[in-house]
Structure formats: structure tokens, C-alpha cells
């Protein structure tokens, strides 16, 4: 049971991370650069 609960939490965290990356990518941001568009100037999109 513990494994299932922990597994779901880990999967949830990873899903959130992936979702955030997909969303950034769709918004034209780079997923590797940290999306610090304010400091960068956001020239990449």
C-alpha cells in the first residue's frame, strides 16, 4: 500500500514537472534555460 501511495505521489510530481515543461514549450519558451524570460529579455520567442 505504501509503495502505491508513494508511487502515485512521485508520478504526480513528475507529471507536474513534465506538464510545466510542455506548457513552457508550447509558449515558445526553452525548457532547458529555466524560462527566465524576464532577465533574458525573452528574445527566443
Amino acid at each position, binding site marked *: 500500500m505504501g509503495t502505491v501511495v508513494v508511487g502515485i505521489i512521485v508520478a504526480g510530481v513528475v507529471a507536474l514537472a513534465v506538464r510545466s515543461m510542455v506548457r513552457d514549450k508550447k509558449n515558445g519558451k526553452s525548457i532547458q534555460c529555466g524560462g527566465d524570460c524576464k*532577465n533574458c529579455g525573452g*528574445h527566443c520567442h
Partner: protein
Amino acid sequence: MSIKIALAGNPNCGKTTLFNALTGSNQFVGNWPGVTVEKKEGKLKGHKDVTIMDLPGIYSLSPYTLEEVVARNYLINEKPDAIINIVDGTNIERNLYLSTQILELGIPVIMAVNMMDIVEKSGDKIYVDKLSKKIGCEVVEISALKGTGIQKAAEKAVALAQKNKTSIPVHEFTKDAEDIIERVEDKLVGVVPDAQRRFFAIKLLEKDDKIQDQMNTSVDVSKEIAEMEEKFDDDTESIITNERYTYISSIIGECLKKDRKEKLTTSDKIDKIVTNRWLALPIFAAVMWLVYFVSVTTVGDIATGWANDGVFGDGWHLFGIGTASYTEVADEYTDAETIVNGFLDYESEQGVDVESVQTALDSEADDYDPAAAKAALTEFATTISDADTATYSVVDEETMADEEVTSTGADFQEAVATMDKYDYTAPDPADYGVWIPGIPVLVENVLDKVGCAEWLRGLILDGIVAGLGAVLGFVPQILILFIFLAFLEGCGYMARVAFIMDRVFRKFGLSGKSFIPMLIGSGCGVPGIMASRTIENERDRRMTIMTTTFIPCGAKLPFIAMVAGAIFGGASWVAPSAYFLGIAAIICSGIILKKTKMFAGDPAPFVMELPAYHMPTIGSVLRSMWERGWSFIKKAGTIILVSTIAVWFTTYFGVMDGKFQMLSEDQIDYSILATIGKAICWIFIPQGWGNWQATVASVTGLVAKENIVGTLGILYGGGDASVYATMGAAFTAVSGYSFLAFNLLCAPCFAAMGAIKREMNNTKWFWTAVGYQCGFAYLVSLVVNQIGGLFTGAGFSIWTIVAIAVIVAFIYLLARPYKESQTLNVSVKTSRAK
């Protein structure tokens, strides 16, 4: 009704500072040109219907640079409802040149004279009422940095936009010039809006080839141009420029009263030393050495040590309460254990059967019983007399070096008594002072309590926590570095560095303009590469893009710190040397590449204002630090998290005995990652680190440079020894520096590579850049290892000959004459008559 207000002004006059103050935004502010390459917009605080547009800094509305094109196109095509023309009060005469052009655009203009605090401090006086009359628009005094007058300026701009009352230029040129301009204006009736006729007329006279694109109908003004050039005996562009400055000179005396005392300002005095021909470079070297020394070695090391060993380790004593007393007893117990184990090893080597005693004393075993340990050791102790001696080897936990130690029987008996005193259990730090357990400990306790499966424990503890912990542990060092960089940028020193480097760069055909992307690249390579857009010369721009990422970015700092700590015992020279290696790589690459046909040509002129030194506000420094640091932390929560899971899976799963299965720590040589690494690690044998762990770490570093640290944290973190100890044992000093050099200079992360591809806008040039970076890094790390090896007794091999050949070729490429600059290449097509 929605209102659009544009901020326009010279570079470095404080537009972005004003923009941030008006909109509450946090756009990056830098005091060198090119920080704002594209326009940015935000809403005026308290006015949802008012949009503020921050335009790139420009000196004129002539289309010489990308920034000027962006700003001009916006002002002509988008026609904002009002323009706030920001004028640097300390350089008002030069700033008014752009103002005279802006006023010709037929858009309501309000002039905001910025940096009034500095003007007042210097004893100068600007008469804004007179200036307003002479220039033809309202003028307000502001200090964007201190926030004074900005609200008034914004309110006046909004009111002006609502009235929609066009500013009419009052400045006039000489009669002859005005007559000709008027005739051209007449030709433009119905072609362009009436309010913009003067602007278009002047631009047509200036032979601005891009202005025709903005007009629906082509208008021929060649007759007027010829007439003007004949009358003034000059080209029209120079004539108009001269007319503008003549007008400005005629009014400036009434509007500005300079403090006549010709004394040097504090900035001038500092610059006399800091930009001195001989002292500038040593001072720059010393400043950067200090920055990296403090960030990585001293304060940063203490903070990161706490983060790595405390927050992402076993735990820490709150405010150090209890650390001293715990360390004392822990050392006492460890010393006793070392002597006891040493004696047991010695006896075992002598053929005495001590296996049962060693098993009983194995405190790492799950079934360790202190009572059984006591019984076994007490019995064994009866066989050792005070006169006995034992020689055994001790492994230093930090350096992993073996050391021969001899102890006497008396030492042994004393050690047994010590262990007895602590009931055969190592002192627990939690029993001393206020102990806060580390994240891995807390996570492990939770996983134990819920009875989590072994594979999931491995994924969480050995993968996610170890990988992310290895990266996040460096956050304190990163933040300290960013504080220093923000301070150096904010106070005006970095602007001087571009000026200083211009002298150096010019010697090999680049200008100081190429150093600005490198300055920005010390935070992140992506904006650094983007900043190369300000370089007009295409060849210089390509060369700058190719070399910008040689400067260590923030993401490489954890890796530099890890190598310095694990392989060089925290030596203070390693981190600064990484920075100077980057600069040396840029300079050498510049010299070599500039001598090739692809990049030959004279350097572009570099014009830059040096802002007065000033103490940046604590808020701006902390904000800059936090925003850059947050991007690092955010990355850890996304791409690094996913990467650590991928690295853990490929490390702990593989084919063994013909079966795909989960592997234990001592079986990871059979893992997927090891298989991949072993297939390619031979490439790095000449570099001295041809092992699969270092190879795969370099490959994962291409996803994000922090991944090198995360991957090494997982790969070297499985055993009993610390990650640093295991890593230190895997490299020699020479191969370690070779590993560092390769990863600093090779192709950057995918994000930066994407930026290179976009900026090059050409697949061939993209691969040329990436190929050059990787090839350069490969050769530099080869030379480091092979030549370094000669001094450390590694011997002579075929690769040493290759390294010597590389050095000879390198010296030749650096020293060969610069033929291309003296040769005019002309392509001639010949055809034979039939």
C-alpha cells in the same frame, strides 16, 4: 480607452529602470548597450488601460542598428498615443539629438530628464521651463532610480495622450535647409500623414533607403538632394546632422548651467585607476578572481557545505549549536574504531581467524548488536598485549589516499576502552545541541514507515534526492556569485570591463561590443548569444556567437565547484581559473578565426557611454540575484528532475546474466548507462578520463549543464564513501582539470545550442559553431592531460606527440600573418566568346 505610451531614449539613459518603476515589472536592467534588443510592454501601475512600451536604446532614428530599426518601425507604424522621451540629464546635449527627431514624428511627446539627482549633485542646473519652450514639448525632471518625478511624468504622458495633441517641433534649421525640406514636404501631401511629413521629408533627403518601404508611393527627391549638397558642399545626411547640432548648441546655453569648477568627479578619479592602460587588466583579473574565490571557495564553500552535508546530507546543528562537542566525541570514537579495525586487519593478515569479531563489529550491518560487539571485542582484546604492534593502512575519507599507520597494543586497549565508553555505538549528532535532520534522512524515515518497495526507495533516494540534492546543494554558491555579478553590473564596473576588453579584443579584430554578450553569458548563455544581435558586422556576430559560451555560465558553476572540491581539495585557484580559461579560449579563438577567410575584416567601431559609478540599491541587487537564482531552482524542479530519473533508471537497470533486471550498487557496471558510456568513453582516453561515468556525465550535461553534477552525484554516490571522495579517487589532478576544461568549452546545453541555431539562421553555420566548440574543447583537454601528465610522471605516449603537434599548430595559427586583411578578394567570372 486604451492608451499606448512608448519610452524612447538613448542607450543607458534609464528607460528600463523607468519602465520597471512605472509598471512594477522586473525587466533586466544593465548599464551597457544592447540590454533591450526588442520592445517590451507592461501596464502602468494603477492604470489597466495604459500600456507602457520599453523600446531599445537608440542614438537616432536612422536605421543603422537593429535597435534603431525596431524602435523606429514601432514609432512610425504603431503610432503610440504618446512618447516619453527619456533624456540623460548628465549628457543632455547629446541626448537632445534624438529628441529633435522624435519631435518630428507627429506624436505627442513629453520629455523626462532623468538622473536629476546626479545632475544636482554635480552642481549643474537644467532650466526645464526654458528647455520646454526651446524644444517644443513638456519637460519634467525625474530620477528613475530613486523614483522621484516618475509618477508626474506618467500622469502628464497619459493626459497628453488623452488630449491627442501632437507635439510640433519648434527647432529650425538654417533658411536654405528649411526651404528645401519644405519643398519635399509639399511633395508628400497625401502620401504620408500630415504630422509625419517633416520626418519623412528629412529622411528622404538623408537618402534613408528603408524609409521608402514605409511609404505607399515612391517620391523622387533627387533634385532637392542635389541642390542641398551643392549649397552646403556636403552630403545631405551630414548636413542635417550638423543642422540639428547647430540648433542644440544654440539653445543649450540658456537651458543648462554647468558647474564651472573643472574638478574631477569621483567616477573620473576611479576611472583613472580602473581603466588605466596598465592597471585595467590586472584589476579586472583581481576582481574576477575575488568574485570566484569568495563565491566558490570561502563563503560559498561554507554555505554549500552546509547545503550539501546538512540539508541534502545527514542533517545539521541549528546555528552550529552542539557541533563542537559532537565533533570531539565523534572523532574520538572514529579514531578508536580505526585502531580496532586496523588491529583486526593486521591479525587477519597474520593468519589469525578474526572474521567473527569483524562481523560482530560491523556497525553498518542490519543486525548489528552492540552487546555482541562488546563480547566479541572484549574476548579478542585478551589476546593483545601492550607491547604488540600492528601496521595497517587507513583510507583518508576526503582524498581516498592510503596511509600506513602503526599502533601499539596499548593504543588498542585504549581504543577498546573508548568504544566501551560509548557502548559500541557511534555518537549520534542528534544527541548534541539542536539537530535538524537532512532531507534524505527525513525522506528515508517516511519511506521506511510506509514500507516502500526497494526499487521505489532507490528511485527516490538514489535518483531524485541524490541527483537534485547534488544540484540544489550549490544554490548558495550560485546566489553569492549572482550577488557579486549584480553588484558589479549595477555599480557600473562591468560597463568599464567592456571598454577595457575593447582594447584587447581590437588587437585580434573584434570590438568590445563582442564582450557584452560574454558578460551577459556569465549568467546564462542563451541571453548572451541573443545579445550578439547588437553586432552589426555579420562575421563578427557569428564569431561572437561561436565563442560566447566559452565563458562559464551560472549552470556550470556547480560543476566547477564540484571539481574544485572533489578533485582539488577545494583549492582556491580552480574556480577563477575556469573563468580565465574561458576568456583565454575566446581570445585565442578570436585570433585564430579572424585570420581565416570566413571571419576576416576590420573590427566595427565601439561606442559606449560609461555611466557614473553609483552604489546600486540593495533591492535591485537582491532582486537580480533572486531572479537568476530562481531560474536555476526552477530548472531543478523540471528538466533536472526528469533527467535524474532517467539517469537513475539507466544506472540501476541493465542486462545481467542475460536478464534485464534491477541492479545493486556493485552491479551498475552492467547498467544501460554503463553500456552506452563504455561504447563511447574510449574517445576520451587521451583526455585521461575515458571512464564511462565521466563520459555519460558529459553527455547528460548537454541537456543542461547542472546535469553533470546530478549525474556524478548518482553515479559516485552509491558506495560507503562520499560522492567527493569517490570522484576524487576516479581522477588525478591533471585528468580532473582536463575533464573540467572539456565540459567548460564544449558545446553548451541544448537551450544555448537552440539559441545558436536561431541566431545563425543557417544549419551549416550552426554545425560549424558546435563542431568548433567541441573540437576546441577536445584539443584543449587533450593538451591539458598529456602535457600535464609529463610534469606529474604519467609518461610519454603517442598522444603526447599529438598534444605537442596540437600546440605547435596552435602557435602557428596564433602567430601566422594576417593576410586576409591586406588582400582584396574579388570574384571575377570570365566567359569565353563563342
